[in-house]
């Protein structure tokens, strides 16, 4: 799993509107609106800069967003949800 590269919509592929603990995300390619909570918007922000592996993502979330309490297992579960929603894909 940790070797898998994940790819998300690049910059401009999403419209993001923070609401409260939820963030509304409009996915331009599908026309679908998603309501996301931490750390999903942050994952999408990191992947917006380019494809990334789980390990690199974990490190970036800790460094850039202070999300350093996550485990690889928890992150893998979040990534799986985003894959199922069509927001990201395995490269």
């Amino acid at each position, binding site marked *: 799993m940790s070797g898998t590269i994940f790819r998300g919509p690049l910059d401009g592929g999403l*419209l993001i509107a923070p609401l409260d603990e939820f963030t*509304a995300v409009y996915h331009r390619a599908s026309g679908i609106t998603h309501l996301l909570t931490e750390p999903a918007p942050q994952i999408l922000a990191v992947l917006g800069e380019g494809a990334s592996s789980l390990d690199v993502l974990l490190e970036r979330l800790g460094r850039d967003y202070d999300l350093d309490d996550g485990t690889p297992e928890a992150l893998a579960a979040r990534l799986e949800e985003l894959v199922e929603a069509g927001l990201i894909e395995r490269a």
Partner: protein
Amino acid sequence: MRYAFSVRIGPIGFRIGSDWRAPIAELQSLYRDYPKPHDGVPDFTVRLFARRPWRRLIRPSVEIGGDYMLPEAAPLPLRQGLLAAEMAMNLQMALGARRYLLLHASAVERDGRALLMTGISGAGKSTLATLLAVKGWRFMGDEFALLDPATGLIHAFPRLISLKNEAIAAAEAAWPTARMGPLMPATPKGDIRHMVPDARAIAAMDVPATPALLVFPRYGFEAETRPVPPAEAFVRMTQASTNYVALGEAGFRSLTGLIADVPSVAIDYPDGASAIEQVEALWSAL
């Protein structure tokens, strides 16, 4: 078609064709003070027709058709023809409207600013809009409020007010001078009677308003007022819009903009008088 009528309600033009005279005559009478569609070209066509030629005369049954249809729309007896026309017009809006984000909400205006009320059927959005209109607010509509993605303004859609069951007597008492359509007992929705919005609502229907307050009323509870968190308001409004998805990016921008700019408040109320008081208090605190 054999009989036809066209009308403009707010920015939306309709053409209604019918195999029978009665529904058209009722529409002509109730909508007599409304303008015609811009340029004479309606946005939507509605058809009231007999499935078979003989069903025009024998046990006449009104099939509902138009530009946009639902296969499950069941026919109505001819004496409910006006209801069929109104349902069909609503259906065109719900399925076909693209220029505005359609909010399933009632709306009233004061000083150029709009109060939107939305909620499940029975929450009282229609009744409250009528009561507020009696108190001097301008009635903008009791079914759909039209949010313009280009300007963020609310456009009025003051169609006939569809009163149900006990709301009929309440509205007649509140507004004794209002013009009323025929009483249609025992429709699929109960007793129905249509009321023509007041002259001011019709005269000012082309004047949009800036949204200022979003209220989620709930009837039959102790008076209580609580703020609605933005995410909850957003989700409830996506569910209260029939064309949010169809508008795509414009819908997303309009709705997130509305939620960001306008406070959302839930109101529980035991009766109309109390609701008016709660709304007025919120309004003056804006």
